[in-house]
């Protein structure tokens, strides 16, 4: 009884003070965001304008050094290309997978479960499994040998990194693809065919535009983490700094040039934000002026 009375008092109090209620609800998550996300970002921004070490003099040298270096820009470019490749491959496989789960299968739940099943295993363990498969004389080479093909020894190549990324991010893309494809009315596809559009035209003018939201979500979910990744390329791609995430990691862990690492991080973040905005715009255009499909 007493606790119920107290509860009544509390709710009455908040009814009379709606602003306090809003604060009580929104306050804690906002505080978490500020402390663990906004403040570190600001700290990194500050550090990126300092010389040599934390607390050094103010300078633009870190940015100038990064933007002026052809080596680094090449790495950024290669990272962009690799991320784009990963995104396209994952999107193609993921869309086909999601499409068949929706259109042709009665065991949807089971198949979706299988898609997300790898998440139950540690990422590092899965990567070591891939090392085992891809290394020269590994599982892949043995299998190739069985059918009389020469060994390839893919480990520590860009192809290995590509395979690793595709494997890791596929479920991340399949889920939003599946969500938008399963809400697509199959009658719309039939209507398109009935009106004279073949399968490819139907896909381009009905299926794809009506699932654009899910497709773009999936693309963004794959592209962004790939772009900033450093563990996968380190494990599967060897010691060469083929991706910009690895360069940043080096600055913090080996070179101990935190300001320079922070500056690269800021530039990369800016690039990602710009790409994100472009992707959202593209999504809006594909959906037309009518906005969200019902």
């Amino acid at each position, binding site marked *: 009884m007493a606790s119920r009375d107290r509860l009544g008092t509390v709710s009455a109090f908040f009814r009379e003070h709606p602003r306090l209620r809003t604060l009580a609800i929104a306050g804690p998550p906002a505080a978490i965001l500020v402390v663990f996300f906004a403040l570190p970002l600001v700290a990194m921004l500050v550090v990126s304008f300092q010389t040599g070490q934390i607390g050094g003099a103010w300078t633009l040298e870190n940015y100038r050094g990064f933007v002026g270096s052809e080596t680094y820009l090449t790495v950024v470019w290669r990272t962009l290309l690799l991320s784009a490749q990963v995104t396209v491959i994952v999107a193609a496989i993921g869309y086909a997978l999601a499409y068949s789960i929706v259109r042709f299968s009665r065991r949807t739940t089971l198949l979706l479960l299988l898609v997300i099943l790898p998440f139950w295993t540690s990422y590092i363990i899965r990567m070591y499994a891939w090392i085992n498969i891809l290394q020269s004389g590994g599982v892949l080479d043995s299998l190739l040998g069985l059918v009389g093909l020469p060994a390839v020894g893919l480990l520590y190549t860009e192809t290995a990194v590509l395979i690793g990324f595709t494997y890791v991010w596929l479920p991340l893309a399949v889920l939003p693809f599946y969500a938008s494809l399963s809400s697509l009315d199959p009658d719309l596809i039939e209507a*398109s*065919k*009935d*009106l004279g*559009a073949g399968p490819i035209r139907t896909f381009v003018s009905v299926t794809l*535009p009506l699932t654009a939201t899910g497709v773009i979500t999936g693309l963004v979910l794959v592209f962004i983490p790939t772009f900033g990744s450093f563990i996968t390329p380190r494990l599967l791609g060897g010691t060469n700094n083929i991706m910009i995430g690895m360069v940043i990691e080096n600055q913090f862990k080996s070179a101990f040039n935190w300001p320079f690492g922070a500056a690269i991080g800021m530039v990369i973040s800016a690039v990602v934000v710009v790409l994100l905005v472009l992707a959202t715009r593209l999504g809006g255009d594909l959906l037309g002026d009518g906005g969200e499909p019902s």
Partner: protein
Amino acid sequence: MSLLRVRGLTKRFGDLLAVDDVDFDVADGEFVSILGPSGSGKSTVLRMVAGFETPTDGAIALNGEPMVGTPPFERDVNMVFQDLALFPHLTVAENIGYGLKQAGVPADEWRDRAGRMLEMVRLDGYDDRMPTELSGGEQQRVALARALVNEPALVLFDEPLSSLDRKLRQHMQSELQRLQAETETTFLYVTHDQEVALAVSDRLVVLNDGAIQQIGTVEALYEDPQSRFVADFIGDVNTVTARVTDATDETITVDVGSDRVSIPRSVADDVAIDASVDVCVRPFRIRVGPAGTKTTEQSETDGATADGGDLDRATDAEIGETFTTTGTVRSRSYQGSDSLYEIATDEWGRLTAEVRSNAYEPDERVAVAWDASDVHVFSRSADDRTGDRGDDA
């Protein structure tokens, strides 16, 4: 030559025989409805004509050309879907012009034709609206326009009016007829709603359990149903169980309760002596009079009032040509010019009678009669096959 020719059409889904050896034709310019209860296979027939389902067996020909195996986008057929299936990301004009665009018609021409089609369905100026901004009735019109604008040989309808309220549905029915006349297109319409089918169709194909029950004009199906199912499904019908006692070339004679009536052969199934039959009669064919009166000149008032005591009842009774009995009015419902009476008869169970008079009150005793020439007689085994009485009609 008929525009659409369907022969031996059969579709199995695993063990389920959805469509069973269906034959029918649709002539150029005709409005034909496929009418049947839910699960009768009527939508499957339509989807096979559209090309969305492949027949297990049988042939479909459009203008003499075999259609089976031709994909839907290469058939000169357009469909109005049950849920309309308007593209939500395209404007009204883009929806209507979709088919023309696929056919390679230039943009200014398809926009122009979409605009004119919108005038025809009385939605002038709706070109740039989005489908979601339209009411249910307006969406129906857009869906219609989208099918008609391509000038297909045949337009298919998969119960598109079922989601509308009664008044709007009746309005759209007359719109459909007007549009069919104006565009001179052939319509094949699938529905479980006999009201819609009767109102709009030139001919009906009645389907039950995947098989055709009867094909004919609305009048033929109503006046001369070939099975108990059709009699039940097209309009309302009363059923009285009787036993055949005699059969000649001209008539059959049945015992029904204490009455013995002779019925013209023309309205009866081929039945054997001693067979149990259903005698069906439409509510508006039944006459009602005050108890003890003759409801017709030739009616057997003696038989009608004799309940129980008459031991050698039908055997010696004169064979009449009228069904007569007595009963008690259970309920009355006013239907404008007519009244519907639920009457519990003393011998034949409950009947529904539709008569001009509003004079009888509930619990009042009445005499009931109808002419033998107005009934339809079906053998009971046919009844057992057709099963339930089509309450969803």
